[in-house]
């Protein structure tokens, strides 16, 4: 029930958005999130958008991955 996956905002009317979620369209409430625009990616949980996703934020994860991959490992005995 805690499943929350990325969805794309297709249209907005007041506090409601039409989103595309894994190939299907459904409504989501924007009551819990400020500054959402058409074309944004959001995390939707139980019918509510709870966070915006951006390319820059995703890039941060890759930066973390790069940093960890380049950090030294223990000597192999």
């Amino acid at each position: 029930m805690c499943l929350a996956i990325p969805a794309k905002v297709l249209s907005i009317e007041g506090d409601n958005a039409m989103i595309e979620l894994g190939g299907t369209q459904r409504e989501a409430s924007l009551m819990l999130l400020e500054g959402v625009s058409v074309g944004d990616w959001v995390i939707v949980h139980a019918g509510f958008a709870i966070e915006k996703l951006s390319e820059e934020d995703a890039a941060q994860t890759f930066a973390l991955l790069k940093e960890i991959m380049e950090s030294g490992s223990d000597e192999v005995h």
Partner: protein
Amino acid sequence: MKFIDEFRDPAAVRALVEKIRRDAGDPPMRLMEVCGTHTASIARSGLRSLLSGAVSLVSGPGCPVCVTPDGYVDAAIALGHKPGITLTSFGDMLRVPGKRSTLEKERAKGIDVRVVYSPLDAVALAAAEPDREIVFLGVGFETTAPAIGGAIRTASDRKLKNFSVLPSVRTIPEAMAILARDPEIRIEGFLCPGHVSVVIGTQPYEELASKHHIPCVVCGFEPLDILLAVSMLLRQKKEGAARVENAYPRGVAPEGNRKAREVIAEVFAPCDTGWRGIGVIPGSGLRISDRYAAFDAERKHGVPVIFAMEDTPCRCGDVLKGKILPPECPLFGKACVPEEPVGPCMVSTEGTCAAYYKYGGGLR
């Protein structure tokens, strides 16, 4: 799919697994995930086997359905038998056992239970059917609490008189602190729940890290996210550090979601609450605030939720605390299977026992 596929890149997964195996100490670092979606993702992607011998991944009480006490199911069933009441619920609550029955079995006997995707669907139903009393079974953690609160606020704004919520909302950091103090569990690091953290941010884990000296890393849900969090935890162990780090910055801002927290603060108030298999954890629950008492099904319909520790051979409690793995329960895969679950961990697809049953557990 955008924001998903790139975090499943097999070459990167292989490289990261190899790095973790190189960096791992002996004995393996013991890490707990406290989110059902992590449990399911780890099982589905076979990470427990891939990392066996390097890190030991144990599952905590990460599925809200799993920790909902049987007294809650009993109260919901009692409500459902009152005339004029329609229960609305997330689907995975229907087969959770109460003391004697489940909502699914009672539905077959005639009570009106409807599955909804969002608590707002229950509000819409109340508006569409003014002659029936619509009760939403408000089960969840901090991720779901704002949605339940938002539905209550919407019903209040629309002046609906026939909508209420039977609350069963729990907050995770208090449970993590209890588990962190338990010497039998011996947790050396937490994979903090990603979507709970979307709401609460990273600050609530600071006390766990500083007071209990346990490294905490907020973790996303794809294989690379989980491996990244594991490597960050290993790095902290190597440094002798215990701090809070964020391996899921695309989903979690350090301050969380302010608007969602405001809805929680407006609609709910903290309370002590019972967790199935664990017991009462002070301050780990959210009751409906007095301002919205008219929408509290417990008060409105006089059906109290009574918590008592279960007396059952089912060992879900020990599974939820990471003390045993599902196959160590005498009922696992025999008397208790997904089609006919005895304990809550076998009910939900995010339950630890269900994940083990479906995907196998791999080595510890």
